[in-house]
């Protein structure tokens, strides 16, 4: 959704949430004092009785939501990705273990809280959520993906971790026609020599790299790994067979994230040479998210370098 010239994940989320609140009277939105920053507070405009700010208490927030879901409500907790992690054990031990119908929406993931620096930049959350039994992990690529998926997520029973950034979110899927399904990966661009698999805003770099590689005569497929868990094994295997080489890119640690998830599939079903692009250190402050992606070489230039190396 456009806001001025900026496509913003959290804006799209907040506005859509307000609409979805009309359709589902059991939907409850809970936040730990970040309602304005996450845009969850838009929900309060119409549904003041179904909006709770529990204060700066992430652990309490998670188990409060768990309790609400145990009596049939449909709670959604909305929090910064990093600070939700201090309630990881609550998510694991209550929501996961009891398989409760709680939706966990995080904003400010990856480097998107660029200015605040490493304390606020969540580069480990996909790995940590992926290991929790019953938990599904969904990462939209841009605001259009948010519009596709949020209504589906809300209707789906059981726990889901839904990872959003902040504002930076160049449109990458606006020209694609697909319906979001949990467990399905989406081919944004077909190709025969190389496959790039990514999730989130870095898919812009994947598409940009594919365009540049095209000029060099390299035909590159780009896959939007929207649903990291459950993962679309068939599509990943199909493209590994078709192209013989895979590069993964993520705004997350390469340990345990998108690259690991793809590698886990391929090593069992069809091993091919792979390269992993993502974070290996804590972040730092910057004036923009784009500056950080470039600083840490999580960008199209790295993809091109790795692609040429893989195709040697």
């Amino acid at each position, binding site marked *: 959704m456009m806001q001025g010239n900026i496509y913003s994940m959290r804006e799209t989320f907040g506005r859509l949430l307000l609409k979805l609140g009309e359709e589902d009277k059991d939907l409850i939105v809970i936040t730990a004092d970040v309602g304005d920053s996450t845009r969850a507070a838009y929900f309060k405009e119409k549904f003041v009785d179904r909006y709770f700010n529990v204060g700066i*208490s992430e652990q309490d927030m998670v188990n*409060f939501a768990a*309790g609400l*879901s145990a009596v049939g409500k449909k*709670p959604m907790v909305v929090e910064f990705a990093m600070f939700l992690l201090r309630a990881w*054990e609550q998510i694991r*031990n209550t929501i996961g273990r009891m398989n409760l119908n709680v939706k966990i929406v995080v904003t400010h993931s990856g480097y998107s809280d660029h200015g605040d620096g490493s304390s606020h930049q969540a580069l480990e959350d996909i790995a940590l959520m992926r290991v929790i039994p019953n938990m599904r992990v969904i990462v939209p690529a841009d605001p259009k993906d948010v519009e596709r998926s949020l209504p589906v997520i809300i209707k789906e029973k059981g726990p889901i971790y839904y990872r959003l950034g902040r504002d930076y979110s160049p449109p990458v899927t606006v020209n694609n026609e697909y319906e979001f399904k949990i467990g399905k990966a989406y081919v944004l661009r077909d190709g025969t020599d190389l496959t790039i698999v990514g999730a989130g805003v870095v898919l812009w770099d994947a598409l940009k790299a594919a365009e540049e590689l095209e000029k060099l005569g390299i035909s590159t497929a780009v896959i939007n790994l929207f649903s990291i868990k459950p993962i679309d094994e068939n599509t990943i295997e199909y493209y590994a067979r078709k192209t013989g080489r895979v590069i993964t890119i993520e705004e997350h640690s390469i340990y345990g994230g998108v690259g690991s998830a793809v590698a886990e599939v391929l090593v069992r079903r069809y091993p091919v040479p792979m390269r992993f692009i993502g974070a290996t250190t804590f972040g730092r402050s910057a004036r923009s998210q784009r500056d950080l992606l470039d600083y840490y070489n999580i960008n199209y230039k790295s993809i091109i370098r790795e692609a040429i190396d893989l195709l040697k």
Partner: protein
Amino acid sequence: MEKGGGRDGTPISVEELDRLRQIAEKARKNVIKMLFYDQTIHVGSSLSSIEILTTLIFKYIRNDSTIVNKDWLILSKGHAAPALYALLAEKGYIKEEELWRIQDVAGLLQGHPEVFIPGVDMSTGSLGQGLSFGIGVATGIKMSGGNGRVYVIMGDGEQDEGEVWEAMTHAVVRNLDNLIAFVEMNKFQLDGSTDEIKPKNYLPKVWEEVGWKVLNCDGHDFISISNALEEAFKANKPVVIFANTLRGKGFAQIENTKKQRSSPDDARKYLLDA
């Protein structure tokens, strides 16, 4: 702090008192008997909770087929699971034979409560999590217009957890008059006495300052527990009952010590003497 556990206006008949005593003694024996089958169960913490659990399960907890009109029992101090199981067996939710398979890999009963066990309302085992869950349940009940009450049982050592403090302030904001928490003061935590590790004597004042109605009771005396609960029902805000208890209550080998376990020989001696 108000005294909820006085002996005036007893809400309990002699017959009922006898019945509760019999149930609790049977449960106490069964917890100790479980030691024969698995020596790693937390006997000390279980024995300190028996009378509170007996009173709740056999006198106060109302069942209903709807989740918002039933009462909820959350054993936040999940390591007292053997006591809960012994009473659920008395209640008929689980078969007594299951007790002897506690922690058996093919058995039903886990070392800490799990919701797949009949009669268990929350999977616990990690300290500090039950009160927040209880606030969620109590809030959901109110939003739905239900009349269910939520009971949460915590330990004194558990009060060290930050989440308890987060939840303590939260419950007051929600004005939950259908939420009753117990803090069982058995004065020991895993590594030793609470006085040595983190003193707990200030806790009732803190809860009261935050806005809870604070009561106390003798956690091994049915009349005292019942009086506190009757008082709690009259409150128009969340209530916490500080219950004085003894770890290992009634089992001389470990009573009032930090010990959680004892040998099967000691258990046999107790059961033969009893």
